[in-house]
């Protein structure tokens, strides 16, 4: 059952899907806006995820950041400060003590920035977040070009040569420069620090970010030495699009998040009762 919770001196609100019955697990899950999409998420995936997690015993909050959905048009605070205020409200009014924070695309970027200085966050939910291009991206791109039919090769070669001859300004979406990401080495150091702090990380990547991720081995260079850490769970779904348009793909993503969240066990007395 969703309930309305007000925050920010009454300027904002969120929808809190309450854990079913007495089966409440420790962290409250807070889903941040996927880009400009309001709190229901692309194709309503946040609603589906929140209600599935509530059935598993989690409280889950969905809300709108400033300038998104029903969010404040003239915010006095940064998005980071707004989220911290929301966590404070959940702590004071809903008894939350620890949090899983994250969401799709830019939600992952914001959650990543916040978790660096937010000890109450014990889990990080990343979806099409930062990935280091590195050499494996170039290898995968070359392999993809070579896999094209022979008839396309002359055109391809012409375009590549053209790019080498003339330094054209970049066109189209360049995720690496458009999104607020740390340098790869900084990201790896931050990953290590978070895992050492005990933060659980679930990172899912799709074929929708093929502009910067084309090969599963890129995840090794992205997360560095900590790649085998049991607190870090990685998935790469090259078949999926960024918004999870097909309903079956969305359901698999939701299943993955729900399974990951089961890391947080029920309180012992409820386990015994169950």
């Amino acid at each position, binding site marked *: 059952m969703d309930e309305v919770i007000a925050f920010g001196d009454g300027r*904002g609100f969120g929808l809190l899907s309450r854990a079913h019955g007495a089966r409440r697990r420790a962290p409250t899950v807070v889903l941040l806006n996927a880009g*400009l999409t*309001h709190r*229901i998420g692309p194709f*309503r995936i946040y609603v589906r995820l929140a209600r599935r997690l509530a059935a598993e015993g989690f409280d889950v909050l969905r809300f709108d950041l400033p300038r998104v959905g029903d969010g404040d048009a003239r915010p006095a605070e940064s998005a980071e400060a707004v989220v911290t205020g929301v966590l404070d409200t959940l702590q004071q009014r809903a008894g939350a003590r620890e949090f899983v924070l994250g969401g799709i695309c830019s939600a992952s970027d914001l959650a990543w920035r916040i978790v660096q200085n937010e000890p109450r966050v014990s889990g990080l939910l990343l979806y099409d977040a930062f990935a280091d291009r590195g050499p494996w991206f170039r290898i995968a791109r070359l392999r993809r070009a070579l896999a094209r039919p022979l008839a396309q090769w002359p055109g391809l070669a012409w375009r590549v040569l053209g790019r080498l001859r003339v330094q054209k300004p970049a066109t189209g979406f360049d995720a690496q420069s458009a999104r607020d990401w740390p340098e790869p080495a900084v990201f790896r150091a931050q990953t290590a620090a978070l895992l050492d702090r005990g933060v659980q990380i679930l990172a899912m990547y799709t074929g*929708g970010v093929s502009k910067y991720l084309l090969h599963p081995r890129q995840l090794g260079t992205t997360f560095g030495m900590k790649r085998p850490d049991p607190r870090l769970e990685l998935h790469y779904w090259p078949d999926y699009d960024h918004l999870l*348009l097909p309903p079956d793909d969305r359901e698999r993503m939701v299943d993955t998040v729900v399974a990951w969240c089961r890391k947080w066990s029920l309180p012992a007395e409820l386990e015994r009762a169950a």
Partner: protein
Amino acid sequence: MSLHPVHFGPPTRRLFGLHHPARGHARANLLMCLPLLHEHVRSYRFFSQLADRFADAGIACLRFDYFGTGDSDGDDDAFTPQSALADIAEAAAELRRRDAAAPLVLLGIRASALLAARAAGDVDAAALWCWQPEHDGRAYIERIAARYREELASRDRFPSRKTLPSAQAGDLMGFRLAPAFAEEFAACRLDDAPGNVPLAVIGDDAALRLAPPHATRHLLPPTATFWADQIDLRGLIALRDAESAVQSLLHELPEPSLRMQAYG
């Protein structure tokens, strides 16, 4: 907060809405029936801002999500045209519960205009405003089904997928709807609007040309209509581009005194 989130309807079928109280005395109650499927998310902030704009002009607004859509209860496959008509009646009652005297205006947006046209008589609307309306349910279903197939076959969207996905029966624009949805919706037409309810059509040249003869017409520039049919949310719709249409709508608000006789 200038908007109030509210759950309403029976406990087994709760709907979620946002009420924007009128600034000062309410000249009208405006019930916003939001766009469907992918267009719901695409236009969400614009219609939130539009509701604020109307509230500032003395019109109380309720935006709500049909059962099985948005923040309302229910899974996607619970959303059908028949249930949506019941939801419009529920939302109209919620608005009147707050202010029974102000006349009720139904604002049907895009494909929701077809639902609002059907509901207008049953909820005794004083006026029906149709924003960038679809005109024919069958043509709408056929168009978005083709659009969905095209999107599933898009190499831009699925650059690495070896076997492209296919739609299951009932799937439309990424939503797994009840298989009966398409058939039910195909029967809806803008012509279903009762002839005795004043009708306004707001949209581009093409929409205004298709408007029924008795409708008043309010032109939107391309910068306010471009978003229709878009799936990806890459930019916002500027409210200022709709201001001229908003001003002309405000001039044709129904008279409160007429409705007070019925609901006062």
